C-alpha cells in the first residue's frame, strides 16, 4: 500500500500559537495503483483556482486521480447531476476523484457527490473539486460523506465567482475515521455571493479537520458560512472558518456561525473563526456556541416519553435538518438520517 504524507494542509490563513495545534494539519493519503487517464495539465482556467486544503492536497489529487469529470453547463442552461458522482468505496481500491465544473453565464448547476463504504474494510477517498461560476451563474454543490469508521477521507474544494454569481456548498461530513476537508471561495465578481452549510458528526476516535475560507475581493460581495455539529466519544474536531476582506471589497458582508454540541467528557473541540480585514467599508461577524445540549430542552423531550438517546438524536437531527433538506435526493436524505441514527445508537 503506497502512502504519501501531506504535511501542510488546511493551513490557517493567519497563523496563531503553535501549541494550539490549529495552524496546519497533516494527513496520510493513500496512492491508488491504477489511475485514470487525465490531461497532463489542468485547464488553465481551473489551474489558477485556489482550494481550501491547499496546494499539497490539490497536487496529490491531480497526480493520483482515479475518476476525472469535467462538467460544462452551457450559458443560461440548467444542469443537474445527482447520480453519476456517487462512489461506493471498498478497501482495496482508493478513490481519488477530480471534478471540474464550469458554470457558464446565467447557468444553474446542481451537483451531488456522495461517498459511502461498500464494506467494513478500511477505505480511502481523496477528492478535488473546482468550480468556476461565471456571470450570474448559480451553483449548488452537495457533498455527502458516509464512510465507515475505518475510512480515511479528504475533500478539497475551490470556487471562483464572477459578477453576480452565487455558489453554495452543502457538506455532510458524517463518517470516516479521519475526515479532512477544505473549501476556499474567491468572491472576485461584483455582487457575487457564497454560502457554506456544513454538518459534521464525530464519534469513536474520529478526527475531523475542516478549513473554510471566503475571500472577498469584489465589491458588494456576500458570504454566509454555517457549521453545525455534534461530538461523541473521543472524537477530535478542528473547525477553521475565515472571512477575508481584501482592500477594495467595499460594501461586502461576511457572516459565520458555528454551533457545536458536546456529548462526551472525552471529546476535544477546537474552533478558530477568523476575520481578516483590510477594507474599511465592510460588515463582518462571526459567532460560535459550544456546549452541551440544552438541559431544559432535553428534560422536555424526556417528559414526552423519549429515551435520552432518542431525545439527543432528535435534537441533533433538528440541528442538521436545514442542511439535510438541501440534499437533492430524498432517498439519500433518508439514508443520512438512518446513518445518523445508527452512529448514535453505536455511541449510546
Amino acid at each position, binding site marked *: 500500500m503506497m502512502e504519501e504524507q501531506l504535511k501542510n494542509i488546511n493551513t490557517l490563513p493567519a497563523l496563531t500559537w503553535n501549541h494550539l495545534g490549529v495552524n496546519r494539519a497533516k494527513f496520510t493519503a493513500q496512492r491508488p495503483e491504477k489511475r485514470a487517464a487525465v490531461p497532463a495539465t489542468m485547464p488553465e482556467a481551473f489551474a489558477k483556482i485556489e482550494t481550501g486544503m491547499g496546494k499539497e492536497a490539490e497536487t496529490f489529487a491531480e497526480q493520483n486521480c482515479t475518476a476525472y469529470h469535467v462538467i460544462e453547463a452551457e450559458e443560461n442552461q440548467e444542469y443537474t447531476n445527482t447520480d453519476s458522482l456517487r462512489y461506493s468505496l471498498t478497501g482495496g481500491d482508493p478513490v481519488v476523484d477530480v471534478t471540474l465544473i464550469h458554470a457558464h453565464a446565467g447557468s444553474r448547476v446542481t451537483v451531488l457527490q456522495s461517498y459511502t463504504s461498500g464494506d467494513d474494510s478500511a477505505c480511502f477517498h481523496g477528492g478535488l473539486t473546482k468550480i468556476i461560476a461565471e456571470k450570474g451563474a448559480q451553483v449548488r454543490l452537495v457533498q455527502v460523506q458516509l464512510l465507515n469508521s475505518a475510512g480515511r477521507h479528504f475533500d478539497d474544494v475551490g470556487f471562483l465567482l464572477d459578477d453576480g454569481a452565487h455558489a453554495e456548498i452543502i457538506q455532510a461530513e458524517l463518517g470516516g475515521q479521519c475526515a479532512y476537508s477544505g473549501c476556499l471561495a474567491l468572491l472576485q465578481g461584483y455582487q457575487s455571493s457564497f454560502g457554506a452549510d456544513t454538518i459534521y458528526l464525530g464519534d469513536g476516535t474520529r478526527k475531523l479537520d475542516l478549513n473554510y475560507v471566503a475571500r472577498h475581493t469584489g465589491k458588494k460581495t456576500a458570504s454566509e458560512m454555517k457549521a453545525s455539529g455534534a461530538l461523541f466519544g473521543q472524537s477530535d474536531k478542528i473547525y477553521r472558518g475565515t472571512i477575508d476582506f481584501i482592500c477594495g471589497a467595499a460594501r461586502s458582508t461576511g457572516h459565520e456561525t458555528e454551533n457545536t454540541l458536546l456529548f462526551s*467528557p*472525552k471529546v476535544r473541540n*477546537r474552533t478558530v*473563526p477568523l476575520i481578516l480585514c483590510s477594507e474599511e467599508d465592510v460588515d463582518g461577524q462571526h459567532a460560535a456556541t459550544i456546549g452541551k445540549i440544552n438541559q431544559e430542552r432535553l428534560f422536555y423531550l424526556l417528559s414526552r416519553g423519549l429515551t435520552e438517546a432518542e431525545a439527543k438524536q432528535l435534537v441533533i437531527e433538528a440541528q442538521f435538518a436545514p442542511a439535510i433538506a438541501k440534499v437533492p435526493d430524498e432517498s439519500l436524505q433518508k439514508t443520512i438520517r438512518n446513518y445518523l441514527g445508527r452512529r448514535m445508537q453505536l455511541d449510546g
Partner: protein
Amino acid sequence: MSKVLQKDQIAEVDHSLYDFKDVEHPSFETNAGLTPEIVEQISRKKGDPEWMREFRLKSLDIYNQLSVPEWGPPIDGLDMRNIVAYVRPDTQMHGKWSDVPDDIKNTFERLGIPEAERKSLAGVGAQYDSEIVYHNVRKEVAEQGVVYTDMESALKGKYADMVREHFMKLVPPTDHKFAALHGAVWSGGSFVYVPPGVSVEIPLQSYFRLNARGAGQFEHTLIIVDKGAYLHFIEGCSAPKYNVANLHAGCVELFVEEGARLRYSTIENWSKNMYNLNTKRALVKKGGTVEWVSGSFGSHTSYLYPMSILQGEGARMEFTGITFAGKGQQLDTGAKVVHAAPHTSSHIVTKSISKDGGECTYRSAVTIQKQASGCKSSVSCESLMLDSQSRSDTIPAMDIRNDDADVGHEAKIGRISDDAVFYLMSRGIREEDARALIVSGFAEPISKELPVEYAVEMNNLIKLEMDQESAPVC
C-alpha cells in the same frame, strides 16, 4: 457641488505629552548586544544571589535555542545586537520625592505621577530606564502589612525566599524566546505582597519610563495577593521617540490566592519605535478573581496577551481591553485563559480601532481542560476600521476538552455607520462631531472600567479632531 466626506477624520493618539527626552547620563550601561559576559556583568552590578546569576545564564542559553514565533507581526527591525540591555540611572532608589534628581523628577512630574500619588494612590514606584528611582507606600497601607517594594530589594531582603519561590515560575524562560530574554537580563520592577484578608482600598501604581536611546527595559513585576485580600494595581509606561528600535520585554507574574481579587490596569503608551514584547500571567486559586484592564496605544509593534490560569474551583477572570493603532503601528493584542478547574468562568471584552495604516490584531485562546467541568466562557470583540489603508484582524481560538462547558464567542468588524452619522446630523450635530461621538461611544465600555483619571487620559488620547478645512471639495 457636494462636499466629499473625508473618511480619515479621527486624530491619532497624541504622543506629544510623552515624547520628550532627557539628556542621558547613566552611571553605568552595558555594551549593546547579548552575550554571557553582558549577562554576568548585569548580575554582578546588581549584586544578584548566586541562584539568580545561574538562572540568568541558563535563560540566555534557552534564548539562544529558541526561535522567534512564526505568527504575529514582523519583528525584523529588532536586532538584539543593537539593544543595550541595562542602563543604570545616575541615582539610587529614593523613598522621598525631593531626593530624586531634578531631571528625572521633572520627567515624572510632567507625566503627572507625583500628583496622582498625592490624590489617589496608596503607593507609587517609578522606574527610569533599568532601575527603580522612587518607591513609596502610604504609612497606613504599610501598617496593614502590605509590602510594596522594588524587585532588587525584595530579592535580597526578608522576602527573598518568597521571591525565589515565585520568580518566573508562572512564566518560565522556556515559555518563549522573549521570556528567556527577560530571564537573562531582567532588571527593575516591583514586588507586592498583600497579606490575607487585607483590602487595599486605593490603588498602587508603578510607572515605567524608558529614556535611553536604543535601550531595552526588562522590568519584572511580582504580585502575591493572599487569601481573601484585594488589590488594584496600575501600570503605566511611556518613552520618547527615537529613530532606532527600543525594546520592552517585561514580565508580570500575579498570584491570586483563595478568595482573593486582583485588578490589574495598564495604560501602555510607548513611543512608536518601541517593540513591546511583554508577557503577563496570573494564577488564580479557588474562588479568586483576576480582572485585567488594558489600554494599548503606543509602540511600533506589540505582542501582548495577558494570560489567566484558573487553577482553583470557582476562579474567575475578566479581561477588558482597547487597542488603538495609528500610522506605522502593528499592535497584536488579546488575552489567553486556561480553565483548569471546575466551575471557573472567563469573560473577555475587547475593542480595537485602526486608522491611517495602523494594524490591529485581536488574538485570543480559551482552553477548557478535561477536569474543568461546569465552566463558562464568553468572548466578545469588536473592531472599527477608519480607513482602507489600515488593517484589522481577529484571530480567536477555542480549545474545549470536555462536554460540560458553555462557551460563546462573537466578533464584529465594521466602519462608522453612515446611518448613525446621518441620524446624528439630522439632530443638528455636525458630521465631524457625530463621528467623534460614535467613536467615543465605541470606546466607552472600556473607558468606564479605567480609573477616572486614566479614562480622561484615554478619552484625550483618542480625542476626535475633525479636519474640515482639508476636506476635498468637488
